[in-house]
C-alpha cells in the first residue's frame, strides 16, 4: 500500500479540519494519550450518561494520522454504549495488526486501514483509542510507546 492510500483524502480532510476538536468542560471522563517518541500528545474527553457516550472531543498536538484518527473516533463514539466503544477499540487494533475485524462496526474509521502497511505509524492511529479506554477506566494517562 502506498503513500497515497495512507494519506488519502478522507484522512487529510480530517487532519485539516478535525471534528470535535475542543476542550470539553466539564467532561465526565478524560485521559491523556502520550507518545513521546513520536511527539504525539492528545487528550480525549467524554460525556457519559446512563452507560452511553453523549459526546466526545479531543485536543492536542499530534501527527496527521493521530489527529485524523481522533477526529474519526470522536464522531464514531457519539451514541455508543461503553461496551460497544471498548469492543471497537479492540477491533480497531485488529484492523491495524492485520487480524480479522468487523468492517461494519468500524465504519467511519476504516479509511485508516492502510496504516497497517506502515508499522512505525500504527501507534499514532491507535493513540486516541487507548486514551478513550483509559478515560473510561479512570486512568489519567496512557502511552503507546513500549
Amino acid at each position, binding site marked *: 500500500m*502506498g*503513500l497515497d492510500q*495512507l*494519506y488519502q483524502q478522507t484522512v*487529510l480532510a480530517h*487532519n*485539516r479540519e478535525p471534528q470535535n476538536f475542543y476542550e470539553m468542560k466539564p467532561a465526565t471522563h478524560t485521559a491523556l494519550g502520550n507518545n*513521546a*517518541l*513520536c*511527539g*504525539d*500528545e492528545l487528550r480525549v474527553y467524554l460525556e457519559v450518561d446512563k452507560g452511553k457516550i453523549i459526546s466526545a472531543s479531543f485536543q492536542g*498536538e*499530534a*501527527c*496527521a*494520522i493521530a*489527529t485524523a484518527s481522533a477526529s474519526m473516533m470522536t464522531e464514531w463514539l457519539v451514541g455508543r454504549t461503553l461496551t460497544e466503544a471498548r469492543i471497537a477499540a479492540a477491533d480497531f487494533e485488529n484492523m491495524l495488526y492485520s487480524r480479522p475485524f468487523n468492517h461494519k462496526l468500524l465504519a467511519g474509521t476504516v479509511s485508516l486501514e492502510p496504516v497497517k502497511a*506502515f508499522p*512505525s*505509524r500504527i501507534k*499514532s492511529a491507535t493513540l486516541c483509542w487507548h486514551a478513550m479506554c483509559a478515560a473510561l477506566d479512570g486512568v489519567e494517562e496512557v502511552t503507546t510507546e513500549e
Partner: protein
Amino acid sequence: MSQAELKSSATSDWNAAAIRDRFPILKKEVHGKPLVYLDTAASAQRPDVVIDAVTNFYTNYNANVHRGVHTLSQEATDLWEAARKTLRRFIGATNCKEIIFTRGMTEGVNLVAQSFVRPRVGPGDKIMITAMEHHSNIVPWQLVCEQTGAELVVIPVSQQGEVELDAFAGMLDERVKMLAVMHVSNALGTINPVVEMTRMAKSFDIPVLIDGAQATPHLDVDVQAIGCDFYCVSGHKMYGPTGIGVLYGREELLEAMPPYHGGGEMIRTVTFEKSTWNDLPAKFEAGTPNIAGGIGLGAAARFIEEVGKKKIRTYESGLLAYGTRRLLEIDGLRIVGTAANKASVMSFVVDGIHPHDIGTIIDHAGVAIRTGHHCAMPILKQLGVAGTARASLGMYNTREEIDVLISAVEKACLMLR
C-alpha cells in the same frame, strides 16, 4: 553564498563521488528511489574498509583475545590491540592504558558515573550537565544522585542552543564534583566550547567528562588539547560498527578507580576470599569483548584519518550552510538550533505539519531522516517543540541530495496543507 559554502566549493581536492563509492549501501534504492541517507547522527553508514575488517576477522582470525597460546588467539589479540593503538592516536591520548573499549558512549558514561563519581559524592555535592544533553548523559547522573544524595545541576542553554557561559561561570564552586557536557549536540548541532568550559571547570579542580558521540565523526578531536579527564566515543556514529565504543580516561584516574563490571579478563587472581584486579585497560574490560567491533572501529578511525579530518570538516561545513539556506526557503519552516558554531545537524519544524508525517512522506522519496525528540527531551521542551525533523550529514552527502530533501519536504507540505 556564505563563507562556509564558498570555502567548501573552493576545496577542489574533495572527490565526493570517490567518497560515496566507499560506502556500498549508498547504491541501495528505497521505494524505487536512490537512497538519500540524512540520518548519520542516529547511526552513520559503514565504508568498505570497516565491513572488510569485520569480515576478514571472522573469516581469517576469529578467536578469543588474551586467552590462548594458539596462533589464532594471538592473531586476534594483535588485531584487537592494534585497534586500540589506532584509537589512541585518533583522539590524541597519551598511552593505550587510557583507551577502554566499551559497548558505546552510553557504557562509558555509566562506567565513569559508577566507578569514579559515585564513591566521591554525597549530599551537598553537585554534578553539573548542560540543558542540551542526550538522555545518555543525563540518566546515569540521575542514578548516581539517587544513590548518593548528590544534586544534579543544569547549565542553562539559550534559545539559539548555546551554553550560557556567564551563567556557567556563576554556577561553579568547590561542591561541583563533575562536569559532564556534550561536545556536539545531536538534536541541535551545536558545537560546545569544551576547551573553554574545561578550563573554567579546572580552576575549581572539577573533573570533566565530554560526550564525544557526535564529535569524532565531524571534528578533529584531541583530548589533550581539550584537557578533559574523560571522553566518550561511540563507534557507530563514526562509521564504525554498533555495540562498540571507547572511553578515554586519564591514566591516574583510571588507575585509582574500582572496576565497573566484574568477570573474566579484568582479574589477575581469583579466590573465594578475594580477587585482585588486572592492569589497565583490562581492569575495565570484563568478559569477552566485541572483538570484531573493536577491529572495525579501528578501521573506521583509520578511514577518517585517510580522508582527512580537516577536509571533512571543511566539506561538511559548506554542505551544512547550503542545506540550512535551502531549507529556510521553504515556507513556514523554522530551524531549531541556530548556534553560531554547528556541525552536521539541521533540525527543523514546519508550521502546521507534524515532523512524523514529514518523515513518512519523504521516506517515499528515498530520503531517510529522523523525527521525534532525538533522546533530548529536555532541550526540545525548552525550545517549545515536542519533536523535530532532523536531517544530519555525513562525509558522503552531497548538494544534490540536499536538493532531493528540499523537494521532498516541499511535496510533503503540499500534500498536508
